[in-house]
């Protein structure tokens, strides 16, 4: 440290001397470089002023007393700046620490989502979920049972960021604890609602849609707890229909009965489930309408389901200037044969 101070002293002395003699631009530039170096070495503004006084005193003999005194005053003033700088440094360190904690949490959250590949001749499946920040309040789920039935879910926790993400993990664990009811949409939502209602703040809620596909009967059964309605694409008529939904969001009252709906899928028909981040997105104050979503899906419907959701996300992200206002989840399940 003493050595650094000594070399800094020398360096500054040469620089000042050079400047006083030639007043050149390049010395000013070196001074700027020096200040960066000093910031890295945690040198405070008052230390800098103090360095300036000692160098200057050595260079100019019989420096007027007023000049020396004025620098002493400047030094006192700089102490305030020094404190502010140190506070900034400590906040920056804390920010880095929080960031790294948040990154670990985001990785943990990512691990709560299913990662198995779905390889089914009868079904084409694709899902994408992107948080607007680091943590997501959206949740999706898919599972295949031993009979080849497939269960899918999209849930959306109110708000975003860490509180929403914590709520989202509750949904995941609650679903894991209800294995016997999997693939029965209405019963599953009713059980989940009881868990959520007991564990959630008064002004929080979760919306969720759960569906299950029976590949033998080609039926898609679903129930919704106040969730943004998805779409049914009819390949024969080449039209999108809004999924009929009815049902209260999770977490309001313990006893809620959910209605179950069913759709019959022909080859090429598909079901689209989404979170309201998809439709609540805005472009320059204008809402992205549900029609815009179906237009985009139609544009890419010749692609495999995973490519459709990826492409739709890419276009919507572009429409919002790459700033998602809300977490985004889009899921497509298509009957192949």
């Amino acid at each position, binding site marked *: 440290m003493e050595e650094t101070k000594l070399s800094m002293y020398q360096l500054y002395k040469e620089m000042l001397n050079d400047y006083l003699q030639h007043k050149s631009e390049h010395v000013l530039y070196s001074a700027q470089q020096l200040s960066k170096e000093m910031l890295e070495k945690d040198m405070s503004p008052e230390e800098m002023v103090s360095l300036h006084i000692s160098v200057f005193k050595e260079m100019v003999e019989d420096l007027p007393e007023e000049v020396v005194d004025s620098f002493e005053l400047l030094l006192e003033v700089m102490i305030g700046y020094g404190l502010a700088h140190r506070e900034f440094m400590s906040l920056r360190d804390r920010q880095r620490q929080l960031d790294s904690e948040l990154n670990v949490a985001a990785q943990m959250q990512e691990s709560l989502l299913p990662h198995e590949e779905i390889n089914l001749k009868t079904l084409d499946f694709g899902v994408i979920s992107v948080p607007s920040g680091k943590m997501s309040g959206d949740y999706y789920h898919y599972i295949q049972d031993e009979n080849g039935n497939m269960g899918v879910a999209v849930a959306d926790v109110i708000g975003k960021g860490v509180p929403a993400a914590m709520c989202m993990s509750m949904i995941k664990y609650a679903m894991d604890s209800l294995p016997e009811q999997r693939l029965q949409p209405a019963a599953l939502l009713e059980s989940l609602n009881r868990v959520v209602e007991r564990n959630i703040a*008064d002004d929080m809620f979760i919306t969720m849609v759960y569906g299950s596909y029976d590949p033998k009967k080609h039926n898609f059964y679903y129930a919704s707890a106040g969730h943004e309605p998805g779409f049914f694409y009819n390949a024969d008529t080449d039209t999108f229909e809004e999924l009929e939904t009815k049902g209260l969001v999770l977490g309001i009252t313990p006893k809620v009965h959910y209605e179950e709906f069913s759709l019959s899928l022909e080859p090429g028909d598909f079901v689209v489930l989404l979170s309201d981040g998809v439709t609540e997105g805005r472009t320059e104050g204008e809402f992205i309408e549900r029609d815009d979503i179906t237009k985009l899906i139609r544009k890419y419907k010749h692609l495999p389901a995973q490519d459709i959701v990826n492409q739709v996300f890419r276009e919507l992200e572009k429409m919002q200037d790459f700033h998602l206002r809300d977490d985004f989840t889009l899921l497509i399940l298509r009957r192949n044969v």
Partner: protein
Amino acid sequence: MNLKVDVQEEGHSRVVYLNGEVDVYTASTLKEKLIPLAEETNKTLAVDLSNVNYIDSTGLGIFIGALKCTDKSGSTLKIRGANARVKRLFEITGLSEVIEIDTEQREEA
């Protein structure tokens, strides 16, 4: 975007007039005003949304919090004047089944 909250006594009910957007930024303003009113016993609390164009899910959460409060305090919560977009939000979430929503006040902004 700001939210203006005005409370008026109208006959036997309290009417909360909102003006602006009820979203993640303004939700706390609304919560501070609305929840104490919802905690009062045996009153009718009406929220007028004639001058609200947009409610996001955080905003909706405040109405749910108020609903839970009025259920406890024996009061009644009503919503009126909602535009089509806002009304749709209450319908999708099933809240229109548990909160009285009067839409006669206005059709579309």
